[in-house]
Every structure is written in structure tokens, then in C-alpha cells.
């Protein structure tokens, strides 16, 4: 039985499966309690920012690496094990260190 490839947009489930929580995700949940009144009742997942926005990294990234082992450099492949690609932010995390 031939398998026909369907384009992404033709399946809402597949779209939702991807767009909701994958890719670059700005996670503002943590902030909600800090931001105050207006936000407490709102799922302000992603409405973000003002001119003086400052963005920091908590933890960043990586290609998700469960089954995958994106060794994207060499052309080889065998999607089994492997370490996820780590992308480290250049932005400092500015944890306050006291010594």
C-alpha cells in the first residue's frame, strides 16, 4: 500500500502536536506570580515584553535527544543513541553568587 505524504497544514492534530510546545518556547509561567495582579488569572504563556524587556536564559536548549542522536555534523546516521546537541547561551545567567 503506497503511503502518500500529506503536507503539514492538512492535519490539525499534527499541527497542534508541534506548534504548541515545540521549537522556541518562551516560558513565562514562572514569572506570573512576580508580575502581579493582572496576570494571576491569565494564562499568560507568551504574551510578553515591553521595550525594556530583558531576556535571560534559565536553561537552554539542545536538540531533544531521546531516541534521537542528532550528530548533525558528520553525514553519518543511525538514529539511536547519542548525546543531544547542546547549545549554550552566550547570555550570562547572572546567578548571584555569594562567596
Amino acid at each position: 500500500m503506497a503511503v502518500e505524504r500529506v503536507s503539514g497544514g492538512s492535519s490539525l492534530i499534527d499541527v497542534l502536536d508541534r506548534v504548541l510546545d515545540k521549537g522556541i518556547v518562551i516560558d513565562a509561567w514562572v514569572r506570573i506570580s512576580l508580575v502581579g495582579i493582572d496576570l494571576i488569572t491569565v494564562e499568560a504563556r507568551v504574551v510578553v515584553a515591553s521595550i525594556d524587556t530583558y531576556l535571560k536564559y534559565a536553561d537552554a536548549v539542545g536538540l531533544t535527544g531521546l531516541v534521537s542522536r542528532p550528530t548533525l555534523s558528520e553525514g553519518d546516521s543511525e538514529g539511536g543513541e547519542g548525546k543531544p546537541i547542546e547549545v549554550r547561551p552566550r547570555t550570562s545567567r547572572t546567578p548571584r553568587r555569594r562567596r
Partner: protein
Amino acid sequence: MSPSKKAKKTTAVRKTSAKAEPATAVLDLVTPPGPAKVESPRSGQQQEGRYVYGVIESRTPVGFGRSSIGGVNEDVYTVHYGDIAAVVSRTPVFIFDPTRDNALAHEHVIESVMKNYTIIPMSFGTVFRTDDDIREVLKSIYSSLKDVLKQMTGKLEFGLKVTWDRDRIIEELQREHDEIHRFHLELTRKHLQSTYFARMQLGRMIDKALAELAANYVREIYDGLRAVCVASRDNKPIGDKMIMNAAFLIQKAREAEFDAAVNRVAQKYGDRLNFKYTGPWPPYNFVNIRLKLERGGQG
């Protein structure tokens, strides 16, 4: 154990103190109906924001048609920082519900961008207040974005979901799986005394056999595709008919090859397994950048 380690863990929530330098200024989350308190230069239009679809590599402005997200009809354009750019459209500042229309509008823009660019997709519903905010974000995670863009250049994601007719497979097991067949016969013929427990046992045997069978199929399918893909990711199957829910990262140049491999694999199983093959997608399953916005000043 060191206090500094500990402090690090918790900073995510507590964050900066009064000592915060100006750079950590205020992140302002904005609620749609809330009073606009942002002193933006364009104070006449505080409610206007920018919906962000993703990030591409480009130094020069690019247009991508129009977007109907949020029920408006706006140009899709780019906001640049150096050689990278966010793909955005104007929108009211608004919490977007992932309705059918909105999700498809989002996807539609992504698809038109993908025709000519590698895009690192932003999750649904990301809205910034101004172009400057977007530039600020691009700037602060520039090196990560560049890195990911570089690695994803010329690559596409495809989705593969494999389902089977569970009931039919169970019937087959009852006919053909030695142990299950025998047990099933005994159950039906002999009216085993403790039928309830016998049935439970049969159920467990069947579950186990199903899991083994599924795992075998999945392994075979991966084996058939591995050589053609850069990476794969195994998501959790949805529902009890699905045995495989995978995403594959493919070199664009090998797209046709991958198509052929999928078909070859699918043919092998005739109508026993049902393949649902989607794409191309941007590399949703292979890029995971989580940004946390932190508020400066007193928390």
C-alpha cells in the same frame, strides 16, 4: 552543597535584588484587557504587538505574504538583528487560543517561509510588544540561534505515525500465537473453573504479545529508515491503535530517497500497518529552546 550552587537553583524565581543593574530592567507581561502601562514611544497604539512565527537567516527584509492569525489580515515581514531575523506580523496584544483557524494560519506562514528558508519555529502564540523587543531577544540569544540555524540548514522534519487494527491483530494472535492459541482454546472449550482469572491471564498474555509485536515492527521500521535520516525522535504513541509516533530529520537533498524508503517499508506490511506520513515540517522535534523571561527589580 555550596551556597552558590543553591543560590543558582533558586534564582529562577527570586532573581535579582535591588542591586540589579539597569540592564535587568523590567520585563512586563501584558494582559490583553489590562491597562496599558508601557511607555512606548508609540503610545498611541499600546495594544499593538507582533506575532512571531520563527527565526530565519537573512540580512535583508523579506515578505512572506499575509497572515490571518487572530482574524486579521496582515503582512508577514522580518525584524532583523545582524544576519538573523524574526518572521512576524502585526497583531493586537492578545492571548491566542489555538483554534483551528489560528493554528492553521500559524502553520501556513511557516510553510511559506520554508519554501526558501530554514526556519527555527517559535511555539504558537508568542507575541511581543514591539519590533525593538524582538530585536532585544534576537540579540540576547543570537549565538544559540545561529548555532541551531546552522545545524538545521538544508534539513526538514517529517512525521510518521503508524497504526494497526488492534482487534484484528488480537484475533490473529488467538489463532496463530502458540501459547495464546492453546490457552484461548482451553478457555473456550473446557470452561475453566476460574474463568475470571483465566481470562485475566489471557489478557495479560495478549498484552505482552502485542507489545512485543509492536516493538518488533517499530524496530524494523526504524531500521528501514535509519540510513536515510539524520536523526529521529520517538514520541509517545497516542491511543491504543498507534504503535509508532516518530519524527525524522532529513537532509533536504535526500527527501525523495526518504519518501521511497517510507514507501518501501510501508509496502512490506501491506494492510497490516497503516502509515500516516506528514511533512515537510520545520524541525519542531529537533529544536528545543526554552527561554525564561525574568523580571528584574524587586521580585
